């Protein structure tokens, strides 16, 4: 009786080993899921929270921000400093300086939520790195949006009546913030 049980158990045990081998064989035949990081990067999901950035209006090629300072007031750690000027021909003020202290930012998203003109969003940059602290203490978001605006106007040759996009920024003390390699374009 117990001999039969022993034989049965041995047989079942061997079968379970074969099942294990089948599982690893199946896994081995599936595609590799490693991302070769410096050469390839993952696309961040839609709800990923990188540092905040200003949004360019895709129609006018200007920042949407009206420098209402609601974001600076909403920020619990007070890490946003911004300023705006009223440029000639415009009805509203527009942003002229936007600095983020990323070292104190907790990515809570209050600024994004409160913005009345949807002018701030989370960027998808996750591989931000720098050799000096200043890059993150004074992240010049205005310089970034300026660069974007310039790229926009280069891509859209100016129609005759439209005014050119704002030229040299009045407050632009630091160089453009971190320029990581292979930052995803998103």
């Amino acid at each position, binding site marked *: 009786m117990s001999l039969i049980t*022993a034989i049965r158990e*041995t047989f079942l045990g061997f079968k379970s080993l074969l099942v294990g081998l089948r599982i*690893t064989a199946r*896994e*081995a035949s599936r595609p590799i*899921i490693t991302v070769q990081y410096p050469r390839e990067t993952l696309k961040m999901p839609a709800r990923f929270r990188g540092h905040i950035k200003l949004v360019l209006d895709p129609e006018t090629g200007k920042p949407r921000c009206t420098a209402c300072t609601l974001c600076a007031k909403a920020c619990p750690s007070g890490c946003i400093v911004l300023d705006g000027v009223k440029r000639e021909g415009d009805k509203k003020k527009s942003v002229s300086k936007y600095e983020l202290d990323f070292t104190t930012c907790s990515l809570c998203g209050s600024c994004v939520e409160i913005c009345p003109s949807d002018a701030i969003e989370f960027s998808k940059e996750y591989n931000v790195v720098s050799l000096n602290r200043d890059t993150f203490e004074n992240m010049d978001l205005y310089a970034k949006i300026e660069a974007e605006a310039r790229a926009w106007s280069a891509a859209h040759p100016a129609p005759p009546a439209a005014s050119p996009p704002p030229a040299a920024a009045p407050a632009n003390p630091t160089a453009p913030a971190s320029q990581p390699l292979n930052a995803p374009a998103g």
Partner: protein
Amino acid sequence: MTFLSLEPIRVLLYLVGICAFVGANAAYLVLAERKGAGRIQRRPGPNEAGWAGWMQPLADGLKLLAKQIMVPPGTDSLLFRLAPLLVMAPPLMCLVTIPFGENVVARDLNLGLLLVFSFGSINVMALMLGGWASRNKYAIISAARVVSQNVAYEIPMLLVVITLLMMTGTMSLQEITAQQAGGFWHWNLFKLWVNPLMPVTFVIFFTCMLAETNRAPFDMAEAESELVAGAFTEYGGMGFGVFFMAEYANIVVGCCLATVLFLGGWQSPIGILSSGAWGLLWFFLKTYALILTVIWIRWTFPRTQFYSLLNLSWKILIPLSLATLLLTGAMMKLPLLWRALS
């Protein structure tokens, strides 16, 4: 040709050839192992050195060679230095009598099988010496484990081999291969009319081979998560590298032996095309299929506990191999008895 057929030259050529084969083979099996582990875990494995990482063994080897060989104070320095050599020598000796092809064998001894097993058991002693000479508690625990494990697994392995010997009637590996000529249904693995449990004996042999070569899931000698690195704890640089090479050389010997004993050696599976270079091709095809299975098994099963390892041998494998031995004997001799009586 006359120059090449001189005996000393021939022996020298085989010696160099076997050493080169074992070295290159160990280096690239490490890569195959890492690649295989990667595939099973769905990552690419080493892929930076050279195209798809094919230069990785070179980098590993250079790193090991560049390291200082430390003999820690308090160890038995003679035995400590001797152990890697002793562990490397047996597989080299075993390969002498393995027939790789119709005419490719260093020495076709008529007791080849006996030679392989007698040298195979020196391996245990070398590992034990290495552990003992290290004067390290992990190494000594590992040495004790290696000995009890190898003693436990040599018995079913030899019982299986005796079963085979009863069938073949010869210990010459070349003759055993020659007996399996003419298609895969003539291989010992499928000689079901001699013993219907032949595939079971193959599984027993393969399991014992895994245990004898201290491979996962039976890698009690180098149980890195519990015994640091077992018997190799105190070894660094090429000392460690030689132990590693010896492990792979032992796997190659074991798989070669399994190929010769069960899978028809250099005989082709279809009955034709088994002479000359074709024989070599078939032999290596079969051997490497077995070696890849060994790697596959390593990355599938976790390490067994020590008592279940011994239980497997004493409670399952030894009774099973005894049963196959008895069955083979009965099936071979009972018809003769019947004929004599009637």
